């Protein structure tokens, strides 16, 4: 039971041999599933063709499931393989997961952009197709067994990995695979009902763990090819800057191990026999920067522009509300800081272009690679490796284009690696936002009017350039507004808008995207309203949740777990937040205490999630822990600042993330449900900053409306005892 390493998988395509291979099409409505009799996919003449089917049952009984989504830590290889195994009635110990090749049949039906992992959509997207593929395969194996035993499929049963005759005879799936491959796949197989699940909802060990603890899992940087060379790059320092000239190229080319220097408009690369030599070469070059005619904003300029946009828009007029809140919240730019720095390996050769990419965006990577080398279609092949962290950064294709550009020049396999400094300084940043709230309460304490203007760059100008800016101007930033648009707080008069502010900064999808800031804003504001209304923050929220049963479930679970109403030890305080994102509702309670010097001790965190049917409970729990820790890094200290267009942070010493000694016990509760699964990977992040801010308010009376909290002097964080 393991996830195959990339190298094994590349071999696999040619060695599938006999067995049952089923293909499918995630986005098709009819005849979604088809039998592939060849043993390999659409390109059987190519011995290296990747497995183009979805599930392959070999004659030895081993089962390979092709996973369209990138495994970036969220456990998707295991979760999606479980769906197939459930309906196939497979022995999960015989199941392995492999990265699917790039092919339209693997497109994500929940996202535009072809094969793309993002928006916490993987489970939602493949919940039905993966189970159908498994059920089809099972039905074909039953038919094959019925033929052999001269009986009807209906009279037979399956047990994990085998078909069983009422008289006790058995045939393993492996023994039936070749015969089953001669049958036609049923187009709409019957799926199990939730009460019959054997795997779904029961914790399964992740398939990728053994390789990851042995050090044999192949991340992008671990690809090793014959004659491979390494590239180090430096970009123009300013985000929109250019390289004016590069001196010392001859001397650098003569350095030991260095092969060549390549100068482009906005970046320069050194290629060498090892990455360290390439990096040494890069440092020895004298690069002159050019920023003439390009915007070079500083963070203060960003801030001034956002405030100006709010001022120009003007404030909402106060009505007859008894109580009124008029506040501004703010978050900075953020970098993803994936644990693995940016990298990609490419080889442009006589037969085409191969790219080994730690990518969330296979289809777009294919496009970027094709553009960089001038080849197309099957000539360009993307091989997805393990990512080493994604969080949205690896949905971009800048590094793919760069690696292929270099590979086309040197005609050798090139492994491009950015230093951590380049990775930090040339990211696609979570937008900075200033969000103004003006909320009036009626005499019952209900929010009557809720006006929320968000000054922020409209990400869609950059992210969907095919649509004219005019359109985005009219719609506003429909992604940046996520999580702020319709707060579940029974508001009569709701007015939420984004005001586009050009920040002249590359922007990207950062874990939880719009929700990453709006969870903090809205759930902090609600805490302020509870106080205005003179009510307990949990009780105040609860009275609006009658129409939001999942919010209510989550809140009730949380207050029970945390014993919300119980007296805490001296100096301990609680903060709460509940937020819906990616179809799921997650709530968190933080217990903390604050010392006189503003050192914060986090004692405990409770988390409850409603995400419909849980596939792998342990994986959901892990993602809750993950989203909380990632969100805490942003809440406490994360910020990217600019000085004249240059990112000021560079590495983990000045773009710090949470450490082991700071993370308290996290207790997670999964609300039982059999409704269709909803998102998980990003959903724990949005509430955490608000839960902490609300607890700090309870502890100190200081309302933190601006991230990161370090700016207000809360610089030291530590883990308390349980």
């Amino acid at each position, binding site marked *: 039971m393991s996830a195959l390493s990339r190298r094994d998988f590349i071999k696999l395509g040619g060695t599938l041999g006999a067995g049952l291979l089923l293909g499918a099409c995630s986005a098709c409505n009819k005849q979604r599933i088809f039998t592939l009799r060849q043993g390999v996919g659409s390109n059987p003449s190519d011995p290296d063709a990747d497995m183009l089917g979805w599930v392959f049952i070999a004659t030895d009984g081993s089962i390979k499931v092709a996973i369209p989504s990138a495994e970036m830590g969220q456990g998707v290889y295991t979760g999606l393989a479980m769906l197939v195994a459930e309906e196939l009635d497979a022995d999960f110990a015989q199941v392995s997961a492999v990265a699917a090749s790039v092919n339209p049949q693997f497109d994500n039906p929940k996202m535009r952009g072809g094969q793309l992992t993002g928006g916490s959509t993987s489970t939602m997207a493949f919940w039905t197709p993966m189970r159908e593929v498994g059920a089809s395969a099972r039905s074909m194996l039953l038919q094959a067994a019925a033929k052999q035993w001269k009986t009807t499929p209906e009279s037979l049963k399956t047990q994990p990995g085998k078909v069983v005759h009422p008289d006790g005879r058995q045939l393993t799936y492996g023994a039936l695979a070749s015969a089953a491959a001669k049958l036609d796949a049923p187009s709409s197989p019957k799926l199990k009902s939730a009460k019959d699940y054997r795997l779904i909802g029961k914790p399964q060990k*992740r398939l990728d763990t053994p390789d990851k603890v042995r050090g044999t899992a192949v991340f992008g940087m671990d690809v090793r090819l014959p004659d491979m060379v390494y590239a180090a790059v430096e970009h123009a320092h300013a985000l929109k800057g250019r390289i004016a000239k590069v001196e010392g190229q001859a001397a650098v080319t003569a350095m030991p191990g260095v092969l060549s220097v390549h100068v482009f408009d906005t970046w320069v690369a050194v290629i060498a026999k090892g990455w360290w030599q390439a990096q040494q070469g890069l440092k020895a070059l004298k690069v002159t920067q050019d920023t003439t005619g390009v915007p070079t904003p500083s963070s203060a300029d960003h801030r001034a522009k956002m405030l100006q946009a709010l001022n120009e828009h003007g404030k909402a007029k106060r009505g007859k509300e008894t109580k009124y809140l008029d506040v501004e919240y703010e978050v900075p730019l953020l970098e993803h800081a994936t644990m693995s720095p940016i990298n990609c390996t490419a080889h442009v050769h006589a037969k085409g272009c191969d790219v080994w990419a730690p990518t969330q965006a296979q289809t777009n990577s294919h496009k970027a690679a094709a553009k960089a080398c001038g080849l197309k279609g099957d000539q360009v092949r993307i091989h997805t490796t393990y990512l080493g*962290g994604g969080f949205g950064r690896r949905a971009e294709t800048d590094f793919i284009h760069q690696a292929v550009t270099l590979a086309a020049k040197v005609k050798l396999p090139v492994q491009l690696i950015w230093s951590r400094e380049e990775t930090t300084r040339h990211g696609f940043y979570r937008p900075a936002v200033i969000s103004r709230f003006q909320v009036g309460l009626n005499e019952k304490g209900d929010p009557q009017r809720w006006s929320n203007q968000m000054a922020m760059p409209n990400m869609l100008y950059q992210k969907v350039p095919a649509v004219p800016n005019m359109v985005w101007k009219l719609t506003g930033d429909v992604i940046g507004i996520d999580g702020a648009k319709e707060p579940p707080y029974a508001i009569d008069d709701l007015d939420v808008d984004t005001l586009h502010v050009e920040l002249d900064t590359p922007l990207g999808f950062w874990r939880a995207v719009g929700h990453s800031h709006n969870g903090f804003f809205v759930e902090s504001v609600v805490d302020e309203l509870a106080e205005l209304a003179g009510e307990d923050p949990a009780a105040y929220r609860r009275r609006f949740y009658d129409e939001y049963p999942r919010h209510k479930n989550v809140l009730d679970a949380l207050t029970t777990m945390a014993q919300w109403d119980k007296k805490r030890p001296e100096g301990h305080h609680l903060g709460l937040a509940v937020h819906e994102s990616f179809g799921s509702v997650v709530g968190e309670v933080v217990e903390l205490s604050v010392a006189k010097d503003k050192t914060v001790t986090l004692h405990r965190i409770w988390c409850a999630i409603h995400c419909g049917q849980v596939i792998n409970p342990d994986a959901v729990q892990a993602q809750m822990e993950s989203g909380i*820790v990632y969100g805490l890094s942003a809440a406490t200290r994360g910020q990217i600042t600019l000085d004249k267009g240059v990112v000021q942070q560079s590495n*983990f010493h000045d773009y710090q993330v949470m450490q082991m000694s700071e*993370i308290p016990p996290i207790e997670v509760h999964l609300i039982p449900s059999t409704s269709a699964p909803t998102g998980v990977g990003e959903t724990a992040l949005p509430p955490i900053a608000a839960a902490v801010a609300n607890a700090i308010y309870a502890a100190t009376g200081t309302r933190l409306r601006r991230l990161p909290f370090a700016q207000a002097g809360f610089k030291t964080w530590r883990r308390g005892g349980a």
Partner: protein
Amino acid sequence: MKVEFDLNGKPHKLDVDAAMPLLWALRDEVGLTGTKFGCGIGQCGACTVHMDGIAMRSCSLPVAAVQGRTITTIEGISAQGLHALQEAWIEEDVPQCGYCQTGQIMAAAAMLAQNPNPSDETIDQTMSNLCRCGTYNRIRKAIHRAAAAMPTPPAEEAKP
């Protein structure tokens, strides 16, 4: 510069620039890719290896410094089968993206060699490796699990 050292139980020779960090010698010259590059400045611990049984950040350790030393990487952490920590990591399903985990295991192994039964405080003080996926609580549990599973002091002991 020529250096000779013991690598995962076997004598090894390298002829590279004396200033090349051990990390890059391991990855690009020797071909051992289990040791990872995360920051290059000793901040993250993804590149952790053992030198004479002590956890070292190989991105900040020039090759010249390993002459005559004993180096252990994740590939050589257990002579046979999996190390108790690797078993515990599997039991607790610790890794997410997995990128930091070999470094985490190497740091934890060196700690257990010094202190077979570390307290939470010792873990806090010793385990400064970063994990961007937030697997810290599972790492802690897995360390306690491995410590409990290792009846005798581990074979790899720190030299004085």
